[in-house]
Every structure is written in structure tokens, then in C-alpha cells.
């Protein structure tokens, strides 16, 4: 079973989001959520597939999902 981490894909705005989502799916992304207001798509795929997502037209950035917290001392 290949490791499929979650990725954050930021759209460049050059293509309609719906069209971009379809392309990302074709490239192997299992789409989680489409955040239309901010032009961000989250989803899961392997590292190799994620590298390919970076070359999809309309993609500005692909980054791994990462932990966020409130941090000390708060």
C-alpha cells in the first residue's frame, strides 16, 4: 500500500478551478476539498504523483499538509 499523504495545491488563477480539479484528478489526486474562495485544493496522492501535479497547468504550488498548533506558551 503506497503512502498517500495529504497535499495542498494552490491554483495560479489562470484556469477555472473546476477545470483544474479535473486535471488534478487525471494526474492521480484523490480530491479532498475544493476551497473555491481562496483557490486551494486539498487531496491525497503519492509523492511521485505530487511531483507531477506541479507541472499541471494552473498550479502555482504543491506543498505537503503540515501540523499547525497554538504553540507555547499560549
Amino acid at each position: 500500500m503506497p503512502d498517500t499523504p495529504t497535499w495542498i495545491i494552490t491554483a495560479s488563477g489562470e484556469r477555472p478551478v473546476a477545470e483544474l480539479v479535473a486535471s488534478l484528478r487525471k494526474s492521480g489526486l484523490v480530491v479532498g476539498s475544493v476551497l473555491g474562495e481562496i483557490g486551494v485544493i486539498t487531496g491525497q496522492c503519492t509523492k511521485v504523483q505530487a511531483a507531477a501535479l506541479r507541472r499541471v497547468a494552473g498550479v502555482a504550488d504543491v506543498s505537503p499538509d503540515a501540523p499547525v498548533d497554538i504553540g507555547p506558551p499560549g
Partner: protein
Amino acid sequence: MAKRPTPARPAPTPAATNGIEAMLLAAQAHGGDSLQTGRYLVTYKEGAQEAGMKAMKAQGMRSADARDFTNQAVDVADVGDADMLMFPEIGVALVNGPAMQARGMGTQDEIASDSAMQTIEPEYFVFAEGATDDYLRGFLSAAETISRDLGRAGGRDAADEIDAQVLGVTWGLTACRVPPSLRSGAGIRVAVLDTGMDLGHPDFAGRAFFTNTFVGQPVQDLHSHGTHCIGTACGPMAPAGSTPRYGIAHRSIIFVGKVLTNSGSGTTASVLAGMNWAIANRCAVISMSLGSQAPVQAAYTAAGQAALNNGCLIVAASGNAGAAAFTGAPANSPTIFAVASLDPGLAPSSFSSGGKIELAAPGRDVFSAVPRPARYGIKSGTSMATPHVAGCAALWAETSPNLRGASLWARLQASARPLPFAAARVGRGLVQAP
């Protein structure tokens, strides 16, 4: 005893079928979890709301549409016997309980990944608990005094400032010049993306909450960080008894986005989902007391830009990794307003990360609300500084409909009180209320 709730003016969570009083009576009659109104909020996935709402109608739901009301200001009394009330602008439907049950829908259901629905959540209401707690108040008073003394010990030049504190107000609100402000944040939407909120906190009786969770846990805050932040940004003008005033935008409209779990952690994906929601709801101020020691993230920058484009301002904590550490994400994004922390002596807090900083605000020994039964507590961090800026931003936003997004950003900086420290530590200085 907190002030009695003012009956909902333009009810922010309008009834699908019942008035608030009727629902309260019904809830009391059947006992159990009285925080739930018996109605549900169905949130649709981005772009899927039309299809989703059509599907509900196809199942025989009688619906009312917010667009049918002038300016989409829904009057509870005019909704009639509809099973659901749709808010197409925000992709949300308010559905009555029996209508949900009749169609076998519930909050426990796993939503199919191809469904138009994103979440089904119970709607909550809030009512006051009358009890006062003198013991706790005494403790708080002592804590405030200790906090003041600590501030004086390190205070140097600012000692006069501390002595001038208004009795019955936290040091932070005094420093931000909140007590003399005539503004209340009335009508301004403030989103706090954090660990949720104690929806039954007596100081918030009568305040309506728009809520959503992005971490799979109920919005009810079992951590306390979120309640504390909301307390500072949106808490009451006059809490019960001798509790000092700790809240700024006391008449703002509160949007609670739970993007961190009850253990205080989350991921970029859940935080982005919360930002998307707050922007979709056109919250003028979005407060984010969270982050990670990461370089600038493109997605946060895009979200910050989308916010500014839509008249929203995102304020975020610089981080608590100390002066040697650079501002963390998301505050390090150029489109997000970074907030550093000050001690009661108005010097930068030792824990406050620096580098890219827009403004500073009180962040050490901050008194605010925490979930019941404690109700009040003191916390420190850039997390606590951030809602001071968010609250003041809401007050500024109330002064003019033109102060939104980038213009609100500029006004907050232009009106700040300069401080004798590097911009990398305090930005343009201490945030000030209008």
C-alpha cells in the same frame, strides 16, 4: 448575572419553523442536551450548494430562500412552515429536526464523498446561567493585581501608564485605549479560527454564534484557547459583578471556526478550510492565533489575498519561538497581518517571534474567558495579542464601510501608538482603538 439576552434583532441564525422561545420551551420539555435547538445546519461543498439544495427539494423538503427576503435579511416570522431555510450566498441550509429525521439524515451519518454536503451540524443556542461566583472573582482580582505588579517590576518608563489603568478593565484593553472608544463592533463579522468556543459561557448569553468545525469535533471548546481568544476579541462590555472588562468588540457578530482540535493541534488543510469559510461569509476580520515555524506557504498567501480582495482582513500571531525566531506561517505571508506580543510594561515579550511584524498588542498575562466551570483565566502568547488587534480592527471597521481589507490594514497601522523598539519586534507599534 450576565445581562439578559437581547432578543435576536435580525436573527443571525433564523428559524426554519420555530421562534427561539418556542424552541427553548421544546428543549426544556424533552430535557437532555439543552444546548441544541433541534435544527441542523447543512453546509454544502464549494460550488455544490445549488445541486445540494435541489436534492433536498427533490426529497420533498419545503424550502424558503434567503434571496426571497429584502437584502437577504430573513425575518423569522416570515419563514412560515418551511422545513428548511437556504442561504445560497454561504452555501448553508438550516433544516428542522423532524424534516431531517423523516429523511433519515443526522449528524452522525458519514457523508458520502460524492455528496454535495460537507457537514451536518446541530444548531446551538445559548442562555445565561445566573449563578455568580464570588470566590472566583476574588481570585481574579488578586490575579489582576499580581499581573499589574509584575508589569510594574519590568515596566520602567511605562509605570505611569500602568498606574493610569482604568479599574475594572484588563491592562490590555487599557493599553489599546478600548474603554474610551465609543465603538462596539456592531454588525461587524469577526471570525476566530481556533479550538472552538464554550457556546454556553454566561458572558456570551444572548450572543449568536455562527459555527463550523473543520476537525471532525463539535465546536464546543474543550481546550480553552479558542474561548480565551474570542473573549478578548468579542467579549462583553460589562461582565457580571466585579469581573473586569476583557472583551473589545462586544456587539460584533461571532463566527467560530474550529480548525484546531481539543488538544490544540490541526493541519494546514483544516486551517485553510476555515479561512475559506470565513471569507465566504465575508467576515471583515479573521483572527488566527495559530501557526507553525514554517517558511511562507503559498496557500496562506493566496488565502490572504482572497481575503483582501473580498474586504476581509486576516490577522495572525507571529509565533512564540522568541526574538531569534522568524515570524511563523501563516503570519509570515505578505497578505496576512502579523501581530507580536507586548508585556504589561509595553516592551516586547521575550517569547514573541519577530521579523515580519505589522503591529504589536498585549500578549502577556492576558485575562479573558475560558470554558465553564472556570469561566476566566490568564494566558500569555502572541495568540493573546492577536485577538486584541482583531477586536480593535472590528471597532475600526464599524467606523466606516470603506475600512475593509487593505484600507483597514493601513488604518490599523497608521493609528498605532509608536513604541521605542525595532519594527522587527513591534511593527508600527501598539494597536489603538478608534
